[in-house]
């Protein structure tokens, strides 16, 4: 009973999504969607606006109800768990628009990150401050009064506090200066190489994807229509075909 399940787990995907459907009310946005992510991987998801990328992220964290299919995380079926329970299992969600608690201070936002990964894990604020020194300087400031770039640093920094195993990142580069985008990209890269961290990132910024992702999936009409390498996504012809980007 001791060694065998752990061994099996290491061979298995960290997250496997099988035939899921979900959406809003009775409207199905995701249809029979399947994929898997390995440990330490950075998986990028691309697709035009409105194809269901955010819907997929919300379904993975549990803010939208699973209508069909299964989601397995570390070998456990979590598709019916409420979001807080998935968070305790080690999944972190950085939503599109960042989801900062505006009325709370920067430090309070960071402290809430301790709620991730379950009880008993030690929060590592210093590591987060090393990546994002501004968050220490601005500790007592109301989070809502910071700039967009600082808020994105806070959004990522506060999930790192809880040391999650899987981070769901929805369009982190949206509305942010290019130099901060690059900085965030490098930090994500470093974290997955050095620590037990896996990332699923939804992005429109193909440059960022090319510099961080190991693998890329293209979504259309609520399902996955292609798997690409980062080099393929950097190819203008390919991008034009899948993303209608001129």
């Amino acid at each position, binding site marked *: 009973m001791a060694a065998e399940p752990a061994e099996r787990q290491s061979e298995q995907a960290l997250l496997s999504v099988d035939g899921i459907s979900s959406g809003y009310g009775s409207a199905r946005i995701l249809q029979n969607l399947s994929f898997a992510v390995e440990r330490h991987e950075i998986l990028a998801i691309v697709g035009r606006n409105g194809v269901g990328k955010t819907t997929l992220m919300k379904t993975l*964290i549990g803010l939208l109800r699973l209508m069909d299919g299964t989601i397995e995380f570390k070998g456990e079926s979590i598709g019916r768990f*409420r979001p*807080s329970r998935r968070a305790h299992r080690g999944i972190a969600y950085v939503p599109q628009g960042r*989801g900062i*608690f505006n*009325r709370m201070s920067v430090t*309070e936002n960071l402290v809430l990150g301790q709620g991730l990964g379950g009880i008993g894990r030690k929060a590592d604020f210093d590591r987060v401050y090393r990546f994002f020194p501004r968050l220490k300087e601005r500790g007592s400031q109301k989070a809502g009064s910071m700039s967009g770039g600082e808020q994105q640093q806070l959004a990522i920094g506060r999930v790192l506090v809880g040391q999650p195993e899987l981070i769901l990142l929805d369009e982190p580069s949206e509305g942010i200066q290019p130099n901060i985008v690059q900085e965030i990209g490098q930090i994500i890269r470093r974290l997955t190489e050095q620590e037990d961290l896996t990332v699923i990132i939804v992005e429109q910024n193909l440059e960022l994807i090319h510099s961080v992702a190991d693998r890329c999936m293209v979504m259309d009409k609520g399902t996955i229509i292609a798997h690409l390498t980062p080099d393929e996504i950097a190819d203008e012809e390919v991008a034009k075909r899948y993303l209608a980007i001129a």
Partner: protein
Amino acid sequence: METVSIIFSFIYQYADNIGFLLLAAVGLIIIFGMMGVINMAHGELMMIGAYITAFAYHAGVPAPIAIIFAGIGSGLAGIVLERLVIRFFYRQLLSSLVVTWGISLVLTEGFLLIFGPSILNVPTPFGSFGVGELTFGIYRLVLFGVALLLIGLIWALFSYTRFGARARATMENPEMAEAFGINTSRMYALTFGLGSALGGIAGGMFALTATISPFFGVNYTLFAFITVVVGGGANVITGVTTSAAALAGAQTIVNNAWSVYVGYVSMMLAAFLILLILPRGISEYLERRKIRVAKKNG
């Protein structure tokens, strides 16, 4: 009459009126002020606290402990209410208004049916003291002190504890709070229970000064809502305290010049005028001013 005793009488009445408003509002600060839940049965949760206090007292329990029982009893009643009914009506203003109003009627009529129109009162403790020719009850000042103490405790709990931060996160953005590992459904039940428990303690405190009947709660619901609404949601604690100070001020001045009835009318009028000028309450104005001053200074 001596000037000293007149001045003291005025201050005493002012403290008494503030204490009344704050104690009536103390549970609703959390339930309505922070969670934004309309609970028209707030006064009935206080009424339950008053009954528990009276029964415990007459069974030989000392009054302070009877009041703690009241807090526990009303808190549990609040959690049951939240789980069975309230939770289905979050963010539905009109439905929650009607439903909780219904609950308040059911509780009132239910208590009338079971316990009759009134029960044995609890004597007011501590006696009185004199200033000049006038005498004053000590317990009224205790009410005022307890009201300030409870408000201070709520403020400390929500500002400085881990539970407080998690509760505020839930109230600001429940979806993100869930994503950060907070079981928001449980958090709503807990905070509602906490507000109900505070209401129960307030009810128990008032039980020592008032006639205990099934209709005990009606007045409190009204004054609690007025105090919290006039205070506004930008900063609930400073809002409620400034609002109680302003409304009790109007009431006390007019009370002395005319009569108790005109005193109540003037308090309503003051609430009406404040909301006309500051539709989002006093605290909204205070927060805006704070930001303006901060900008000017740096």
